[in-house]
Each structure stands twice: as C-alpha cells, then as structure tokens.
C-alpha cells in the first residue's frame, strides 16, 4: 500500500497542535473535529468509514463505519487532499491538555495498538482498525476497556496523550506496572495484562484501585500522566454545580476521598 510521506511540525507546549505539510497530491486523514486550520488549495472530503484503501463496496464501508462506532469515534473521517501545485499545510489540534505523539509506523513493524480515543491524524493509507482485547480481566479492569484501536500501515500517525507523555522501550522480560487508564499505546509485541494490587488495604485506601495494568517487553510503550477522565473527575468534583466546595479553602476536612475502588479512570 502506498503511503503518503508527510512532513510535520508540532507547536505548543502543553496544548499542542501538529502542522502537517502535504506535497501536491498527498493527503492526510484527521479525526472529525480536530482540524485547526488549512491553507488554500487543500480540499476537504468527508468519508464514511476510515478512508483506507481496502474498503471497497458498500459492505466494506459499512464495516469500517461500524468499527468506528465501536471505538467511540464519529462515523466519518475527513480526508485533507492537497490539490494545488505546491506544498500546503493543514493543522490538527489536540482536544485536551497533553502531548501529541508522532509515530512512524514503518519503524514499529507496521502496527500500533492505541487507547481507543487517542487517534488524532495520520497520513492517508494508514488504516484504523479495532483490536479487541481478548483477555477478560484486562478488558474489565485494565482501564482501557475491551475495544482498542489498531493503526496499520507504514506512514506517520499522530496520537494524543493527556498530561505529560512517557515513552519507553521495554527490554525483553522487563515489566512495568501502570495505573489503569494511563496506557496510551504499545507495540503488539508487548504483553498487556493486569495484576491484583495485592493488599486489600492498598486496594481500598491506596486510591489506585484493585488492579494495576502490567506491560512487559520487548517493545515500545507510551504512557500518559493525566488521563482525560481523571482530569474531568477533578473538575466535576471542584465545580460549584456538583456541590464540591467551590471555595479555594475547600471543605473543612480537605476532602477525605477514599479513592475509587476500581480505579474510575474509564
């Protein structure tokens, strides 16, 4: 499959956007609603499904759209096509504070498993699929649910992580325990599993939930320091409307907060 090679530049610190340069005839796909600006000469086309080449015929398109529904994305993707004779730029902005991760799929063996709402944009030709988590425990307690997103191809893809990004290459046999909800992406060679926190006391009062996610190498992993759901929880807790002490001083006891039993990151 011929991938479009795109040059890109990432701007900003904590609330970033990525500017992608398209050569004449090149195209990029973006998640609906993330486009920030585009120059003259770029035509926008909305596709039913994910815009990869394999989807021929109505059935293929419906399947693609169904997959996108499962991953919680909109039914449509938008393709940005450079129809001018010179280089043109289009920018995609991250929807919440965090970092944009540029991933070159060709250097990763062609496949990346991501958390289901982390996809931002990609070169045209990258296919967005579903990686169904087939470990029941991980699906229920791993913090990422049963449905993950699979990016296939050999072009550039941009995914988004909340807060600060941590990227690490795990050596064979090396294991990292991660709070559920913090996993953004990993190579398919990485074992994604869960581990019981070990002590009831820790599980109930440690605020980390009953389970950790464990990632074991070899392979690269990307972690986020602040899952959006955690940020949202804090905002809701602090808001006046939700009855959380809107005053700066906070409540008398300063919020005892038992922590969430199962780690309410998802």
């Amino acid at each position, binding site marked *: 499959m011929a991938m479009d090679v795109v040059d890109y530049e990432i701007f900003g610190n904590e609330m970033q956007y990525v500017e992608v340069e398209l050569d004449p005839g090149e195209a990029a796909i973006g998640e609906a609603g993330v486009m920030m600006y585009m120059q003259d000469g770029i035509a926008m086309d909305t596709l039913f499904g994910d815009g990869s080449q394999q989807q021929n015929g109505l059935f293929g398109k419906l399947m693609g759209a169904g997959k996108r529904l499962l991953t919680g994305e909109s039914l449509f993707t938008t393709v940005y096509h450079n129809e001018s004779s010179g280089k043109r730029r289009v920018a995609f902005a991250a929807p919440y504070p965090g970092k944009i991760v540029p991933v070159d799929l060709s250097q990763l*063996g062609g496949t990346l498993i991501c958390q289901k709402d982390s996809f931002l944009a990609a070169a045209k030709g990258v296919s967005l699929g579903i990686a169904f988590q087939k470990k029941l425990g991980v699906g229920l307690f791993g913090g990422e649910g049963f449905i993950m997103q699979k990016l296939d191809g050999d072009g550039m893809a941009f995914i988004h992580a909340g807060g600060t990004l941590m990227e690490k290459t795990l050596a064979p046999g090396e294991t990292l325990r991660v709070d559920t909800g913090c996993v953004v992406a990993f190579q398919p060679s990485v074992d994604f599993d869960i581990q019981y926190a070990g002590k009831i006391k820790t599980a109930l009062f440690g605020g980390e939930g009953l389970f950790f996610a464990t990632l074991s190498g070899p392979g690269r992993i990307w972690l986020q320091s602040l899952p959006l759901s955690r940020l949202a929880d804090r905002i809701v807790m602090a808001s006046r409307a939700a009855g959380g002490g809107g005053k700066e001083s906070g409540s008398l006891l300063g919020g005892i907060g038992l922590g969430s039993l199962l780690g309410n990151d998802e």
Partner: protein
Amino acid sequence: MSPGEAPLPARFYPAGGDAHGHPARLAWDDGMLLVQPEDSSGLLRVPASQLRVEARGFNHSQWAIAWAGDAGATHTHLLLVDDARIAPLRAAAPALFAAGDTTRRHSQRRFRVGIVLLAAIPLAFLGALLLSVEPLAERLVDHIPPGVEQQIGEAVLAHTRAAGPMITEGPAFDALQAIGKRLARPGEVLHFHLAARPEINAFAAPGGIVVVHSALMASAGSAEEVAGVLAHEIAHVELRHSLRQIVKSAGLRIILTGLSGDYAPLGGWAAQLGELKFSRDAERAADARGLERLKEARIDPMGMLRFFETLAANTPSGPALLSTHPATAERIDSLKAAIAAAPGAPAQSIGIDWEPVKNALNSPSGPQRK
C-alpha cells in the same frame, strides 16, 4: 522453507543487548534456524532442539523464539515474529508451534467462557425472578384483604350473569338456599347462586360465592347429593383455591399489582378466566374438607358419593363437572375409604322433598328466570 526463499522478517534481541533489538531475517534449513541480523553481524545457526517457541504479546499475536545465550551467560537470545508472517516457518517446522498453539487455544477458550458467564449472570437473575413468581404469588394470596376478594368474586359473578339467565326464585332456588344454610357454619357468609345452564356443573368464586347450574340440581336424586357438591365447592372457597388460581394465572402482573397495593384489576382478569380448573391436589383437599363439613352439618356423606357415582356411570362422555374435576374413580375410592374410616355422628335428613324441585326445573314452562 529453503534458504533460497525470501527470508522471514523478525526482530532480534540478542542476549545482553539493548532493549530496542534490531531487525533480522530468518530462514529454516534442515532442522536449523538461520538468523541473519541486519546489523551485519555474522549468521547464527541454532539447532531446533535448543529453541523455545511461545505465543505472546497483545492477544498472543506474536511468536517469541528464544534460545540460550553463549555458555555461562544468563540471558537468552530472543526473536519476535508477527503471527501474520510466521506461515513459512510454521510450514517448515510445525512441531515448534504446538505449545504456543495450545496457549492460544486456552486463552481463547477462557475468553469465550468468560463472555458467556458475563452474559449468563443477568439471564440467571431473570430466570430466578420468573421461577419465584409462583411462590411470591402464593404469598400474596394471604395478604389480599377480604374486601378485594369480595370484589373479585363479584366480577366473576357478573361474568356468569352476562353469559346466561340466573334463577332467583322458585322451589329449586329455595332448596339451594336451604341446603346452603344447613352447610354454613355459624358466622360464615356464603352466597349461593343458581344459573340456568344445561351443563351439569358447579363452581366456586372468591368471596364465598358458589354458583350451581340448574342441570346439576335436576340430575341429582336428593338434597343430600346436592349438599355433597356444595360442601365440596364451599371447601374450595374456604381454601381460597379460586383466588390462588387467579393469582397464579395472572403471574407476574399480580406481583406488580400487589406491590402497588391496588387489587382492582384482579376482578377483570378473573372474569376473563371464567371458571377455573384446579389441580388434583386442590380437588383432593376440597373433597376431604367437604366431607368434614357434611359430617359437621350431620348430612349423610353417602349423598356426595352417590352423586359422583351417578355422574360417572350415566354420562360416559363425562359431564362438565367431572371434566373440570379429574380422576373421578380415584376420588370416589378415597371418599369411600374416608367415609368408612370415620362414619361420624348419625346423619339427619335435610328434609327437602326433591321431586317438586326436579319438576320445577324440568317443567315445560321452564323455571322462573330473570
């Protein structure tokens, strides 16, 4: 796979190397795995006996091929191959993959069983709820107030009235009331109704209501025979069989009714159900209770027996009464046994001359109807 074919792409993590590993090419040559790392280090040859192959990674989509490092080293060399690309090696050395395939199958089975269990738990809850409908309904019966029972009975009676004429006076009606009065215990409120119907039948409705068809009285030989039938039907009332049956038939709706405390819709359902069929156990219990009542009232219990026998003998097709009251022969036998076992106090005749009653019902002008 011979060395001449396109070698398999893989990622090689040499023992003691860095975490990143580097690309390599694999080939299979006569029981030896050939590994050519792309960093231009030398070709490695590993005999099949030293290889450990397992499925790992996300959903076991990768194959890890490991073998011991150089002598004395604690680390092992590791090769990772994507499942989509393993086919040539698998074809060349299928035995290597047996263990990994088992791991995959087991994990798939675990997943399927888990999903089925997850789906089964809510279904089990639903099943338990449906199974508990009957016991719950049984319990509810004890909590239905007499007023409501009365209402339900009225609804059933209204249904009977709508279905055909009722007889409200005349010798037959008077006889029925007289027999009923004799059977009623002090303080007991029972209502006896006579319906002009050609089927030999009688039934009980909630609220102490007993409906007798005119054909039953016409075919009886004496007041004692009718008294036997009435005693049986009163027993149904006493044991709240009709109410129980209505509640059971209404099923889940009744529980909702009970929760809301509004029993009014019961009457409507009862009317729809019309005459009820009881279980054999209920019939047996009613026979026994009816017999007791006859003895208390000092009415000859042989009348009850005689009527059943007459019906069973004279109408081979089975009259309506018997069709709703199954296993007659068995019941006659157990009645006989019960009568023989405890004869009770000497009977006193009801003292109704039965011929005028019969004549009134059979006269060509017909009984007085309303």
